[in-house]
């Protein structure tokens, strides 16, 4: 139970995907103008990240490593992700048109999201993972858990920023600071807040 709780805190807060590891900054800046969009993107990314970990980890450990084809990982992973996104899009379209209406536009964007390829690359690197969530030996269970809570961390950060941006739009600031620069400053202050979680444990 202790390890479980630790993984959650490390993945969601202390090593937040966006604010600490800088993965998935493009949707973080591009889709945080309204809270509804931010939530839709967050849910879609969490879903894809979890399923990506579930598929790429066994592919790497049980197919690429025994065949000594580790150097193909980038090409294999990006194709798995692209196919997965397409598949999920079709499934959602078929079974839940309402959900598709809400989430559909975000799904194609996820293929080129750093956070998804990033999580696939991170979970196969035991040394990096020992640093990030403090487990000595990676397994399929841990990698799926990390994919899910990494996605939750992404969602938390993007929703918080969208709340801030709804306010910063009306601030009286110099013209050249409007838009991206003031968003970056807001993200800076959020990152300082998340830094505090490093002292837990």
């Amino acid at each position: 139970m202790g390890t479980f709780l630790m993984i959650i805190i490390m993945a969601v807060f202390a090593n937040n995907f966006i604010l600490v590891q800088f993965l998935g900054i493009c949707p973080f800046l591009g889709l945080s103008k309204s809270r509804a969009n931010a939530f839709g993107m967050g849910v879609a990314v969490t879903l894809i990240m979890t399923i990506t970990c579930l598929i790429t980890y066994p592919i790497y450990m049980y197919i690429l490593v025994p065949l000594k084809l580790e150097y193909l990982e980038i090409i294999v992973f990006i194709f798995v992700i692209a196919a997965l996104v397409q598949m999920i899009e079709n499934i959602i379209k078929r079974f839940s048109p309402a959900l598709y209406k809400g989430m559909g536009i975000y799904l194609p964007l996820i293929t080129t999201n750093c956070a998804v390829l990033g999580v696939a690359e991170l979970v196969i690197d035991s040394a990096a993972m020992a640093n990030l969530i403090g487990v000595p030996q990676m397994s399929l269970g841990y990698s799926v858990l990390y994919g899910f809570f990494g996605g939750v961390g992404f969602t938390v950060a993007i929703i918080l920023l969208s709340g801030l941006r709804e306010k910063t739009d009306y601030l009286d600031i110099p013209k050249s600071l409007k838009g991206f620069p003031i968003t970056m400053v807001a993200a800076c202050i959020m990152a300082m807040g998340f830094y505090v979680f490093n002292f837990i444990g």
Partner: protein
Amino acid sequence: MNWSKYKNIATNGVLKNNPIFRLVLGTCPTLALTGSALNAFGMGLAVTFILTLSNTFISLLRKVIPDEVRIPAYVLIIATLVTIIRMLLEKYIPVLFESFGVYLPLIVVNCIILGRAEGFANKNPIFDSALDGFFTGIGCTLAMGLMGIVREFLGAGSFFGMQLMDFRIEFFTSAAGAFFVYGMFIAIFNAAYKAIENKINKKNFALHLEELSIKENN
């Protein structure tokens, strides 16, 4: 030889459409690797190398690749190039390989590269595309290098690893400092760009008025 066209491609890549400061693309490696100037320049050069080659290959194959599957085809080309550069770095520059970490494979999903493939290389001849890739990459390298130098100097008091000063403000090399410095750079770059543009417009307007008055006098 059409020099004005090439000059246009160069200024577009480095200044007018600078991928980092003007378009705000490829933000992940920019934020993550500008804590030290060496990493920032190394990443910029890696992106330049891949961008030039990917633009060349995509332009070369633009009439062969069917339109419906062009994005997967581009991704395959880029992923292959990234795999090659990853092997080369691991063998010859292990220092950079170590410090790039997960951001090296992530060049595949860098928006700058796919953006130039989709926006330029798939409808322009080979030489122009290669040039566009090269100069966009140089714009990226200069922007990242500048940020790297500033952050390393303020955060660690050093310049490319050489210790110059005794003070250090660790905020600037931390995650929060990355966002802050990036935001300030975008603001300064945009303000400077706008000021220069206004000046050029005013000059053109004055010339135009002069021409009009000459015509009237005649």
